[in-house]
């Protein structure tokens, strides 16, 4: 594989540089910098104190989070905690946030995030929410773009490998989910080699336009293929969503070989408006299934879990017209709808052409019943009937396409490590630019909306190698920024990204930045253990449970001296940050804590649970440099032996006994 890649890269060098150097043997350095224009620096320079034009949200892949960067500078802005616990803030450790991690499998501290999707209104970014999928234990999260915090997570039942997700609809009616790994539906103990009989895929539509109300509206039972990526239609194709599938061979072992046999797999075209009709006509089965819906209530400062017990499943046999298959060469990855909603581009990883389908031709083919066959009640359309054209010899390993709003599509090509630009109506490649190396997805700000900003393109590369100072065997992934405002793509910047971004979406900063919350109003804090004034700080003992109602404000805790804690107690430090000033979080850490620390934002309450194991005096302190007297922001807890009668006593400044 590696050898093959080198050969391909070498071949590409010859192609690109050979023409530039008029026959000279390709030079590595020349290849690496030839595309870099001399004015590139000025295009990406954002002076200190000035803001970037776009926010970009990168999935974190195996780190389970989302990373936010500014474009064009490539500056990192924030890591949003989503599916992985975070000891830095206490996310997933505190009682306030633990429910976010609950699933039908129990508490899951990690997942694999792939595809961020920004909410839309009328097919354009509206800057309300970002959704992202968890691939391993199928879930979708909602991130609130006023706080850049995860506020909701729903588990997807009857699924495994939630890869074609969330890819929502043009008014955020739904986000979608699909099974990359088909499994027995419902789950049961069957031999793996009974795959063809017992394994099924599902495609789910999740209600998404009301915070706190995410719900699996319905699932469509599909043949047991691997469903890979998705896009929903817009404009004329609104009402439809498209999913790629591979492994139509239904292999269950050595997929590398066994799932690469068919010349064509399928794009599944799902008519979700038809599905809604079938649901309203009762053409579905209510299937028992256990799955979790977790919601963070910002005012209560608390996440809650709700367990759902059944799901509506539509069998395409009972709901004709809900699903069609478009034959698509070969093991397709991306399925991307042009900004005008008419063209659907498939990215066949192993295909020699890129098929461009026409939505209106697809509708005509359905109408005229231009069918090849039927699979499990799903009609397979004739390839040519829905095809607009095939882009010939585009590149090697085409994966994923976005659009610039000017009639061009841009496809990432993993094997030949390049991005190609093509006229999708005229069906011809007009430009190509190398990437370093092995590009996965690419993005254009708004590239999956009705109004793309065809100014920048970012290639997300899987292999970094010599592109940065070496850091041992493990390297960050690289992102390369291209200026696509002209006829030729021009690489202008490169930066490195956390985790393994599979995909990213970018939004005009102006759509978000004035809506950002700077603090949480203390007056609205409804946490049951919140204290809003220092005079109300106190400690209550209930048997072996000790609840410390504590406050923090520059630069002290109330109380900061605590006595009367005993070995065997469970101490709950309920800490409220009384600040109402932007960017003044306080941290709280206590020596020997087996939990994390907590970072508490202004106006918030968070709880650290502590079980002291030995008598002694334990310091606690503020971990976030908050003020000139931050180093003084500390306190002590005296822990006495079990059964001791040291009285409970607490104070700040003036020692007093308990009232």
């Amino acid at each position, binding site marked *: 594989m590696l050898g093959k890649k080198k050969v391909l890269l070498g071949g590409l060098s010859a192609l690109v540089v050979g023409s530039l150097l008029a026959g000279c043997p390709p030079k590595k350095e020349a290849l690496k910098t030839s595309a870099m224009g001399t004015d590139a620096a000025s295009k990406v320079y954002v002076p200190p104190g000035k803001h970037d034009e776009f926010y970009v949200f990168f999935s974190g892949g195996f780190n389970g989070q989302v990373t936010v960067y500014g474009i064009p500078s490539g500056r990192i802005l924030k890591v949003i905690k989503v599916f992985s616990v975070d000891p830095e803030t206490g996310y997933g450790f505190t009682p306030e946030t633990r429910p976010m991690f609950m699933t039908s499998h129990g508490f899951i501290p990690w997942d694999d995030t792939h595809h961020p999707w920004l909410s839309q209104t009328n097919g354009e970014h509206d800057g309300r929410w970002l959704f992202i999928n968890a691939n391993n234990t199928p879930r979708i999260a909602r991130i609130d773009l006023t706080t850049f915090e995860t506020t909701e997570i729903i588990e997807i039942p009857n699924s495994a490998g939630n890869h074609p997700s969330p890819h929502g609809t043009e008014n955020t009616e739904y986000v979608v989910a699909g099974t990359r790994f088909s499994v027995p539906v419902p789950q049961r103990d069957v031999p793996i080699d009974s795959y063809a009989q017992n394994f099924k895929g599902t495609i789910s539509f999740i209600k998404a336009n009301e915070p706190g109300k995410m719900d699996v509206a319905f699932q469509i039972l599909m043949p047991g293929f691997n469903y890979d990526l998705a896009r929903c239609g817009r404009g004329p194709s609104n009402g439809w969503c498209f999913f790629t599938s591979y492994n139509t061979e239904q292999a269950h072992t050595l997929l590398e070989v066994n799932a690469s046999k068919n010349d064509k797999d399928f794009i599944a075209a799902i008519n979700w408006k038809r599905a809604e009709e079938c649901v309203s006509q009762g053409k579905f089965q209510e299937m028992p299934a256990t799955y979790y819906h977790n919601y963070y209530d910002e005012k209560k400062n608390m996440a809650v879990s709700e367990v759902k017990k059944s799901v509506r499943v539509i069998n395409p046999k009972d709901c004709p017209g809900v699903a069609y298959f478009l034959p698509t060469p070969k093991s397709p990855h991306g399925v991307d709808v042009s900004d005008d909603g008419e063209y659907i581009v498939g990215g066949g990883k192993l295909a020699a052409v890129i098929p461009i389908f026409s939505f209106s031709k697809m509708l005509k083919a359905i109408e005229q019943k231009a069918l090849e066959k039927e699979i499990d009640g799903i009609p397979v359309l004739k390839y040519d009937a829905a095809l607009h054209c095939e882009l010939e010899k585009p590149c090697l390993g085409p994966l994923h396409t976005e659009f610039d709003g000017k009639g061009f599509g841009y496809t990432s090509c993993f094997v030949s490590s390049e991005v190609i630009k093509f006229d999708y109506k005229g069906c011809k490649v007009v430009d190509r630019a190398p990437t370093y190396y092995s590009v996965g997805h690419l993005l254009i700000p708004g590239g999956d909306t009705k109004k793309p900003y065809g100014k920048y393109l970012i290639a997300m590369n899987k292999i970094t190698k010599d592109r940065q100072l070496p850091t041992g065997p493990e390297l960050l992934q690289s992102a390369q920024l291209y200026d696509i405002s002209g006829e030729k793509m021009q690489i202008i910047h490169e930066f490195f990204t956390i985790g393994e971004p599979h995909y990213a979406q970018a939004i005009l900063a102006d759509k978000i930045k004035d809506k950002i919350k700077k603090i949480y109003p203390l007056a609205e804090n409804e946490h049951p253990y919140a204290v809003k004034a220092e005079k109300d700080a106190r400690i209550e003992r209930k048997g072996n449970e000790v609840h410390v109602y504590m406050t923090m*404000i520059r630069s002290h805790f109330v109380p900061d001296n605590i006595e009367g804690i005993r070995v065997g107690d469970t101490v709950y430090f309920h800490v409220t940050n009384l600040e109402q000033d932007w960017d003044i979080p306080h941290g709280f850490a206590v020596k020997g804590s087996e939990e994390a620390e907590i970072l508490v934002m202004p106006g918030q309450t968070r709880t650290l649970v502590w079980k002291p194991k030995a008598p002694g005096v334990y310091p606690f302190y503020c971990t976030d440099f908050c003020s000139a007297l931050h180093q003084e922001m500390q306190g002590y807890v005296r822990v006495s032996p079990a059964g001791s009668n040291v009285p409970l006593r607490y104070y700040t400044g003036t020692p007093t006994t308990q009232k």
Partner: protein
Amino acid sequence: MNILSRGLLALASLLLILTYFLPLWRIELVAPQYPEGLRMFIWVNRITGGTEFDLYNINLLNHYIGMKPIEPEAIPELKILPFIIGFLIAFGLLSAILGKRVLLYAWVITFVLLGVAGLADFYKWEYDYGHNLDPNAPIKIPGLAYQPPLIGTRQLLNMLASSFPDVGGYIAVVSLFIGFLAIAMDLRFSEAGKAEVKPA
């Protein structure tokens, strides 16, 4: 008083009604870490922050230097001031109706005296906050007081403090100016009247 002066006096008095709805004075603090500034507005009957939390944050920062918290409820002037302004309005309107010259003069002199007294009181208030500091304050700089300027700007540690009238304050100034104008008109037209009367 002629009709013009009476009208001007009435206008000056009525203008003062606006000071109930607009802040009289503003104090602003700008520091490297507060580029957006912290603002405090003084109204006839209350003190507010530039944002919902500016006053809270000013008090929070002031505790480091031992300045006592600014608690609008505990400032007696804010309880009296609405009545003083009300008195000026009523007095001015009554004088305009009665049209006696002596009342116009009395109104303007009262206004000037109240203005001077107000500024003196404000200075005293600033002096008290700036000098009367908690001896246990974490930050103590010998010889440095934190009194903001009466009008103007002054650097106080990392804070650039500025103190200026706000819209309501300027309206009061305009009102007083109109009062003076009423006197000037009264003088001018009464002399002109005399000159006209003479030949007849």
